[in-house]
């Protein structure tokens, strides 16, 4: 998905003057979409670092936002990154892989969440976008978003969950938990890739491109 696509707001429903609470999911998406437009107008989507990004789902700015949120939420103290696991940028890459194939509606919500977080400072009349703030201030922004409740609280929960999806999938984070990881990597009974066991399944599968019976 291109960055342009990633920025298109859902346009099926209009925002009304209900205020920020009690909003439907669609209104939330519209609002975050409107945030994108506003942000573009003030040039807040430019100038991200040119660090190599080969994500399939997240745009570069979303990866930056993800990494910045990780730096605020994962360590004991915002900004003091723990040494045992992936870097914030690797957390973003892990999240990107995890999101691949998500239903489009959910991806739209996730994009809305990133807009809200990166441009959420706009809601509080802040000038600097989220990724430009020091880590402790980022945590403040995230908590301000959470405290608005309803869909905003869900957006906070969403980014929080993604941080842990990106962090705890890395084997290096497991030792602290006492978790000994995958059984197939330990001494133990062999998993199924033994030829005798996997053969019956392979025999069920047609060659890629094979033409099924009954084609009209």
């Amino acid at each position, binding site marked *: 998905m291109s960055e342009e696509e990633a920025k298109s707001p859902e346009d099926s429903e209009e925002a009304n003057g209900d205020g920020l609470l009690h909003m439907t*999911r669609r209104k939330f998406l519209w609002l975050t979409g409107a945030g994108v437009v506003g942000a573009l107008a003030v040039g807040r989507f430019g100038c991200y670092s040119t660090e190599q990004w080969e994500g*399939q789902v997240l745009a570069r700015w979303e990866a930056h936002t993800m990494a910045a949120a990780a730096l605020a*939420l*994962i*360590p*004991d*103290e*915002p900004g003091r990154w723990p040494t045992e696991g992936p870097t914030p940028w690797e957390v973003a890459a*892990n999240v990107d892989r*995890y999101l*691949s*194939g*998500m*239903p*489009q*509606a*959910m991806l739209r919500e996730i994009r809305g969440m990133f807009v809200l977080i990166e441009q959420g400072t706009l809601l509080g009349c802040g000038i600097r976008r989220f990724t430009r703030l020091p880590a402790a201030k980022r*945590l403040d922004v995230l908590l301000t978003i959470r405290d608005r409740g*309803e869909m905003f*609280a*869900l957006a906070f*929960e969403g980014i*929080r*969950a993604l*941080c*842990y*999806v990106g*962090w*705890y*999938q890395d084997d290096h*984070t*497991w030792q*602290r*938990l*006492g*978790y000994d990881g*995958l*059984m*197939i990597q330990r001494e*133990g*009974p062999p*998993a*199924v*890739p033994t030829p005798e*066991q*996997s053969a019956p*399944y*392979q025999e*069920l*599968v*047609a060659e*890629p*491109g*094979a*033409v*099924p*019976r*009954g*084609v*009209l």
Partner: protein
Amino acid sequence: MIYDASTFDLPIRIKTDLCVIGSGAGGAAAAAVAAELGLDVVVLETGPFVPPSVMNQREEDMMPALLRANGSQTTTDGRCTIIQGRALGGSTVHNTNLCKRIPDAILDEWEETRGMKYLPRSRWEEIYQQVEAALDVSPIESHRVNHHNQLFQRGCEALGWDSGGLLHNRNGCVESGFCSLGCSYDAKNNAAKIYVPRIVEADGQIFTHCQAVRVLHRDGKAYGVEAVALEPTTRRSMGSVTIEADQVCVSASATGTPAILLRSDIPDPSGETGNRLTIHPALVAAGEFDKPVRGWEGIPQSIASSEFLDFEAAHPPQDAGDAARARAEEVGHRTWLIPVFAHPMSTATIMPGWGKEHRRLMERYDRMAVFTAMVHDRSHGTVRPSGELDLDIEWSPAEPDRRELLFGLARTAELLFAAGAKRVFAPHRPLIELEPGDSLSPLHDIDLTTGAIDLNAVHPMSSVPMGDDPSNAPVDSRGKHHHIDGLWVADGSLFPTSIGGPPQLSIYALGVHVGQSIADL
């Protein structure tokens, strides 16, 4: 054979006798039986084929490979996570293999309220026996009960609560504990292992990465299915797959099936399609122990407690007196208690908080036991199609279910303390932390409407409930649609109510029943 539809020369049009949509417990069983009885069968499955040799026990790989929305499906308000499978074999590939028949009190109620003339008790007995034999259902031997489940049992014994072993469908289990991510050892007797080979053996054809969009029908008769092949990574439509078939069986699960029927404008004067969803909602509490529990090791669930699950009380006969009716409304008859455990990534997303607080909680991971209270729910949710490929689920607990959920949560805490926990956590935002002797009232006082605590569900059901009277049911007790000829349903949607226990056995049985009914026609 199993064909990957994403490799077809698209668009493609195929003729068959029966098109089955979905390859989970219901669809795979229905397709296998119908194919063995001589029908030419095509099964459409939106997910991939993930054989055991590909299963690598990693959450970040297996959840996207096996689960709808990569395991993140929620109700539209985001408050309840509903986990469902989307792979060949459906939710049976990643489930925890518990097997249980529907209790008599519920079957009695269904007969009273829905007729069920094609599904008398003798028929249930017949199809249960067939499925139990096919899946090799057996008791989980006591030496396989892991420490986590032993703690659960110890707590029940200390409190004098009923508890007992469970039945499962596994052979050759090496007790790896990775059931929820698919079995790398091929020990699960699931739909992919038991029924898919039977479909292929009987010359049936299965198309993976192929999502049904709508049932084609005209003049009150089904004549096929409009589907699309999906690009395996992005899951976007690559082109159309049209199936011409005189019989169509929708088995896309209790969420997928009503979404397809509604998108297809299938008439239903009863108004029940997509409007009676039940889910067995659950809340969890975690307890911290002095010594390691290592809940991820071994068979995940082998002991449960039915102390607060009284089907007779919850389902009085229609002619019962006022006292029995009042008793049915009392709290504490609809809660099933059982241990649950997740691997680190999923556990971390459930644990509340961030920063230091969250890291300290996760440091206790190996010393934690987690028990859940699953409710035999009565609240009705809805399923609606969303665009051509997606769906929206709404479910929130009505007052009786809300009370039952919080009652259950308090019992899990009680049980954890009785098992020896020195501290109990409810994953509420903010965290609720209790010590032995503390009042449990903070748990009873939780407001479930604010989203401060997450509900979880793994058993969506009853969204296209069967019944012999077309005025109150879309399909009859054979799974045959009342208003469209040649249209059938065979999955968890068919239950008229929630069933209060693990549903797979009964869904497989309904699949067998519907498959035979289609072939008999």
